[in-house]
């Protein structure tokens, strides 16, 4: 929204993807074309099975496009890119590790497990209310706390682009709204760029700067909307008059 946010972080340039199985081939994504700017929060919605997760896998370099190119900061993205932080539906914390050992896992994997980086990860956990739980095991934490720990783990290696795959859908409704608020705040405060996929229209409106609407398979971006809530928090947005108007509009687009 201000001048420096014009820099492009993630770019899909005419990307198509075909899945191959012995039964045949399926076109999962067709001619995807979009760009995500620095500091933007993108939400991607689409009918179930349309390939939302495929979109994230392509962004993380876990899948290679059959045609076209996915670029991160202008370079083709490859698996394990240091700028990418991937967060899944469930927290996927390792039950045999303490919370602290869980959030420093990316440092071990990326071979940057220095005392300074570990201290930074711990500081992040303390800043966002996990300080008292570092020596606990995941099964001693509530669902919301666990998801927050998963976010801190995602942030530990200091990625610039977060990919969020329905990160709230495994939580009960009340927890979901709270964790959604939390995650939104943390991502804003840490100045991350984020792309969240969800099947929940209201969740998309409550967090995003822009919402991409995908078609049924093969996935295409059929619409991209500037939501225009600025820095409003998810719970405030839900109370805003424009919220239901956006909901109706996106609902209709999904059901076209």
């Amino acid at each position, binding site marked *: 929204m201000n001048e420096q946010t014009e820099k492009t972080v993630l770019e899909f340039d005419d990307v198509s993807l075909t899945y191959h199985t012995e039964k045949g081939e399926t076109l999962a994504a067709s001619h995807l074309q979009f760009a995500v700017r620095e500091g933007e929060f993108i939400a991607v919605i689409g009918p179930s099975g349309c390939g939302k997760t495929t979109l994230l896998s392509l962004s*993380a370099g*876990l899948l290679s496009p059959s045609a076209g190119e996915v670029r991160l900061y202008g370079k083709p993205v490859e*698996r*394990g*890119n*240091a700028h*990418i932080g*991937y967060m*899944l*539906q*469930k927290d*996927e914390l*390792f039950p*045999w590790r303490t919370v602290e050992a869980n959030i420093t*896992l*990316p440092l*071990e*994997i*990326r071979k940057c497990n220095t005392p300074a980086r570990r201290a930074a990860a711990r500081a992040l956990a303390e800043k966002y209310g996990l300080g008292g739980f570092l020596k606990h*095991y995941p099964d001693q934490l509530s669902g919301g706390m666990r998801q927050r720990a998963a976010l801190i783990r995602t942030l530990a*290696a200091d990625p610039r682009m977060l*990919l969020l795959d329905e990160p709230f859908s495994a939580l009960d409704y009340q927890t979901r709204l709270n964790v959604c608020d939390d995650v939104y705040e943390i991502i804003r405060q840490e100045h991350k760029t984020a792309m969240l996929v969800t099947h929940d229209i209201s969740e998309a409106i409550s967090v995003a700067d822009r919402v991409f609407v995908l078609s049924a398979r093969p996935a295409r971006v059929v619409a991209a909307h500037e939501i225009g809530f600025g820095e409003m928090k998810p719970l405030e947005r839900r109370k805003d008059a424009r919220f239901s108007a956006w909901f109706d509009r996106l609902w209709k687009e999904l059901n076209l």
Partner: protein
Amino acid sequence: MKTQSNCSLEHSLFLRRRRRESIVVQLARFGLLIAVLGIWELIAGLKLVDPFIISSPSRIAVQIGKLAADGSLFYHIGVTLWETVAGFVIAVVLGTGIALALWWSERARRILEPYIVVLNSLPKIALGPVIIIWFGTGSSAIVFMTVLVGIIVAILHMLGGFMATDANKILLLQSMGASKVQMLRKLVLPSALPQFVGMLKICVGMAWIGSIMGEYIVSKAGLGYLIVYGGQVFKLDLVMAATVILCALAGAMYALVALAERILTKK
């Protein structure tokens, strides 16, 4: 979390009931053993059935005492224990190693699958003559038999554990750019720990089957040898004495593995 002093009356009643129940269970367990031994002793003592055929607890005790006195008891226990433990360790180590290799290479897995299935179904005792010809009649033949009985189960059990690693956790590590070695060390091995412990328990049983079966086929010493020898010369006391010792040893080895489980799975 609550201490005795500040718990409610209802809770202390609950605790007392639980304690009483566990005392009853312990007493009944012990009582059952005493009753069976007592009836057995009585039937033999009153000659309702010839003790030559069914032996008796006191005759078994005397027999064990005799074996202990001439030192052969510990010799036979030592032989069988060594064969069983050696076979167990080799089967566990080799089986886990092979399972790891099969996890690592999908191609190897697909190539070897039918062979493993056939080996798993094959009654290992059918290989008895082959083992005697290859390994002779010493302890090594019996250790080999023990390994053979345990290793396929160890491989299949561990491979199942490795392959059951949570796909989403694999995806998470892949997104961080984890190598296959990192995947193994950080995720696959720790998450298969419960399977490993389960496999240890199964392999303890398998190892005893293997070593005693081996001693049945070919042996000059050991508890299995004593049982076979006792049967051939119709000394039921000897057969029963060796069987009782076997029960005690197998129970002790299982208890050791259970202890290992507690240590391994403790956070």
